[in-house]
């Protein structure tokens, strides 16, 4: 299969403009004749559904939650990047582009990233106009801060709730279109299959989560904005409902899955406290600006932190990375915390945590300054752990957070299945092997507000769409497939709950395909997952019926997909014999222990084609070329 990225050539500054000009337009009076399905209502899906409806398309939007406002974009704390250069500190579209390509460890498409950096300006304007209450300076102008080690102040924020406010902006725009009748909203409705007719995406099969009704919906194009797949690891910072079912079932219908092994671990999360742990809570990495990370120098030192004298503490990040210290990038901070715990120097009851200590900062600046800076985070930590971070160090540990991989898309955000578009975290393009802080919100909104509404018309205007309805063989087959999965899960009547299997899968993934990976561990995971998957299908216990609200059944279908996806993640990780960004292979590191990329052999996006459950997938490569930002080795010493 030839992967055509449709990436424009010529000067990068004008690629998007020239590309847009070359796209066909749909006559305004014809737009209402086209129906577009949007699955997911987060920053990407919500903004896309609203914007497409504003253009005049007939939009059907689906989400599994009870309201589009619940999508997990809502939990993003830190902020959103935009190259406004309001601070006159040397920022520019080019610099944001450069930082993103470099931060992604040279595994992203340059054309896409440049477009994203350019659109970042429009996003802020749009959100301000919608009434997003961004932080302001006393003058009334927008405030910015620097975030995640960036050397310029380009992050816009609304307290620690930026994701919430941006999502509510998109949600309100969407509700306005719902009120106008331009969008038909289907809450508590989950996509369970993609309907492909004559090679083109023409609809989806859904389950009404309240009545259990399985139904086909048809359209001229289908857009997936269903987020990432971090929950394959069971414990993650994702919401409990986050799942990969929509993208995975589209993958099984032919859409290529790109770079699944590019997953991001966030270093500052509240550690696991017991077997009942259901999710992990992230705390903004801004904490590392003033907190010092340490563990006891001696193994198995069980003394309270206040009893450990200065000389017996190991501030390992400051020791190993004197110039960046506690502010090294996410992946470096995470790996070093894991290494300290693996050596038996972890703290807390489980030994799977390191200290993040504010004692020195409080002495230097006073508790009131620390409270002003991090008060809400300290409160959150206190609420969850019952410990007071003003008087004793926080315990933190890394957790699965974001997935850079996703369905392969071209420059128009269309997958290799014509008519199937994928936006936001669900696709793979813009972050390469590692995402920078405050860039996820930017990408979701760029795709939904500004890219997709411009590109989708070209496909609609260039194709003829014959009418399809539920009597079509493809729809009947897809519905039968969904019914069969439901019946199999309900019919297994086994011994163990869905969660117990999910937890077991998560442990395999975290152990062998987490922060650091090696060939041996990955092979072990690939030996463990298939038999567990088989066992799952015959031994899972899902009580109740398919005819009403059945949360176990919902989970069961999602976990079935995580099993298959987990295998692909491990295969991809095993296949990529290099370290880059979030993918750290222990065999491939520099003498200093840093990630060693192999640009000669791995400067490509790995796009996998499904060949059947348990069958090795087929690898297609999209070569990546770097005309503007030249690959270099990262160093934080």
């Amino acid at each position: 299969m030839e992967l055509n990225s449709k990436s424009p050539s010529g000067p990068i500054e004008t690629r998007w403009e020239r590309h847009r000009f070359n796209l066909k337009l749909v006559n305004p009076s014809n737009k209402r004749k086209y129906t577009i399905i949007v699955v997911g209502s987060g920053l990407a899906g919500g903004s896309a559904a609203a914007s497409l409806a504003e253009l005049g398309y007939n939009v059907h939007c689906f989400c599994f939650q009870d309201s589009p406002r619940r999508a997990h974009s809502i939990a993003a704390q830190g902020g959103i990047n935009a190259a406004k250069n309001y601070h006159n500190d040397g920022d520019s579209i080019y610099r944001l582009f450069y930082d993103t390509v470099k931060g992604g460890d040279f595994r992203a498409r340059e054309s896409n990233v440049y477009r994203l950096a350019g659109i970042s300006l429009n996003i802020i304007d749009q959100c301000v106009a919608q009434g997003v209450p961004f932080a302001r300076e006393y003058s009334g102008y927008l405030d910015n801060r620097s975030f995640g080690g960036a050397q310029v102040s380009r992050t816009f924020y609304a307290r620690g709730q930026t994701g919430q406010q941006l999502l509510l902006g998109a949600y309100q725009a969407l509700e306005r279109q719902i009120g106008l009748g331009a969008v038909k909203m289907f809450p508590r409705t989950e996509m369970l299959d993609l309907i492909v007719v004559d090679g083109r995406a023409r609809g989806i099969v859904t389950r009404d989560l309240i009545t259990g009704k399985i139904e086909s919906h048809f359209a001229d194009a289908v857009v997936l904005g269903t987020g990432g797949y971090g929950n394959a690891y069971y414990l993650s910072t994702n919401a409990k409902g986050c799942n990969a079912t929509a993208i995975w079932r589209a993958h099984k219908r032919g859409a290529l899955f790109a770079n699944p092994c590019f997953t991001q671990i966030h270093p500052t999360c509240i550690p696991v406290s017991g077997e009942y742990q259901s999710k992990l809570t992230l705390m903004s990495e801004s904490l590392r600006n003033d907190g010092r990370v340490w563990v006891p120098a001696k193994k198995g030192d069980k003394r309270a932190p206040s009893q450990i004298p200065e000389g017996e503490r190991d501030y390992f990040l400051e020791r190993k990375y004197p110039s960046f210290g506690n502010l090294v990038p996410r992946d470096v901070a995470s790996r070093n915390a894991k290494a300290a715990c693996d050596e038996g120097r972890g703290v807390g009851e489980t030994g799977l945590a390191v200290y993040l200590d504010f004692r020195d900062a409080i002495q230097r600046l006073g508790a009131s300054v620390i409270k002003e800076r991090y008060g809400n985070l300290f409160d959150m930590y206190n609420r969850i752990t019952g410990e007071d971070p003003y008087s004793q160090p926080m315990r933190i540990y890394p957790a699965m957070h974001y997935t850079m991989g996703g369905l392969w898309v071209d420059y128009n955000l269309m997958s290799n299945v014509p008519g199937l578009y994928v936006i936001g975290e669900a696709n793979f393009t813009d972050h390469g092997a590692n995402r920078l802080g405050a860039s996820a919100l930017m990408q979701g909104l760029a795709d939904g507000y500004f890219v997709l509404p411009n590109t989708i018309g070209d496909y609609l205007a260039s194709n003829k769409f014959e009418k399809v309805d539920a009597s079509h063989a493809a729809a009947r087959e897809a519905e039968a497939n969904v019914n069969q999965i439901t019946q199999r899960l309900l019919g297994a009547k086994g011994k163990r709950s869905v969660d117990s299997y999910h937890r077991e899968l998560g442990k395999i993934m975290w152990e062998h395909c987490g922060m650091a990976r090696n060939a041996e561990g990955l092979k072990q995971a690939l030996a463990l997952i298939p038999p567990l998957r088989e066992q799952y299908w015959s031994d899972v216990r899902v009580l109740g019926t398919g005819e009403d609200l059945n949360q176990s059944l919902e989970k069961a279908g999602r976990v079935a997909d995580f099993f298959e996806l987990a295998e692909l993640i491990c295969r991809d990780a095993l296949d990529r014999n290099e370290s880059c960004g979030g993918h750290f292979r222990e065999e491939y590191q520099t003498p200093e222990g840093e990630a060693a990329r192999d640009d000669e052999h791995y400067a490509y996006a790995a796009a996998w084609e499904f060949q059947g459950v348990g069958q090795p997938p087929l690898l297609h490569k999209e070569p990546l070329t770097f005309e503007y930002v030249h690959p270099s080795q990262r160093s934080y010493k």
Partner: protein
Amino acid sequence: MRITLHIWRQRNANDAGKMVRYELPNVNHEMSFLEMLDVLNEDLIAKNEEPVAFDHDCREGICGMCGCMVNGMAHGPLPGTTLCQLHMRHFKDGDELYLEPWRAKAFPVVKDLVVDRTAFDRIIAAGGYISVATGSAPDGNAVMVPKEDAERSMDAAACIGCGACVAMCPNAAAALFTGAKIAHLGLLPQGQPERQQRAIAMVAQAKQELFGSCTNMGLCEAVCPKEIKLEVIARMNGDFIRASLSGR
């Protein structure tokens, strides 16, 4: 520690429903409230009994999906805290807890502790937005917003739409929810052109959804996990009255 739960079990909207008693002999005080329910559900599944349905998603106190009445208090006894952020260390050995869904005509029970809150979405759809089509916005700094206004707007915008205010209100009023959106947008210069129309439309929609009227009891403010202040209701009433007088 040992906890006794009495949980509202209701198969679907048509079922009468009843309280059912469950014993949890080994609750870890580090657990969150919802993790305790997870443990109960695992136990129930092991005994071939259908697990308790409850809404939840982010478990970080921001999505607004979770919530039920715990001994008559929406989201339980801890102020400023969603149910998912409530931990068992705030309870003691031997406690008996009564868990019920939000009770309001506008929030019909779907199953067990799950209710239908789409009425809130329809209130927003009636006018809880600023009408700006994608692409037509001026530069972000073209509109200046005094810092104090931005902060007060953000205070109101922090609403997570969980419905605790409605559940706690003896009138099942949606005034805190509706007022929060009206205050959020009405405090910003961008929200001025539609301010009066917004108040009329949203208040009318809330009435149509069968939410009750506000009689200034203040229970909504007391249980709001985001500590939205009653003053947003005063702003709503002010906007509504001004709009009514000006004949819009």
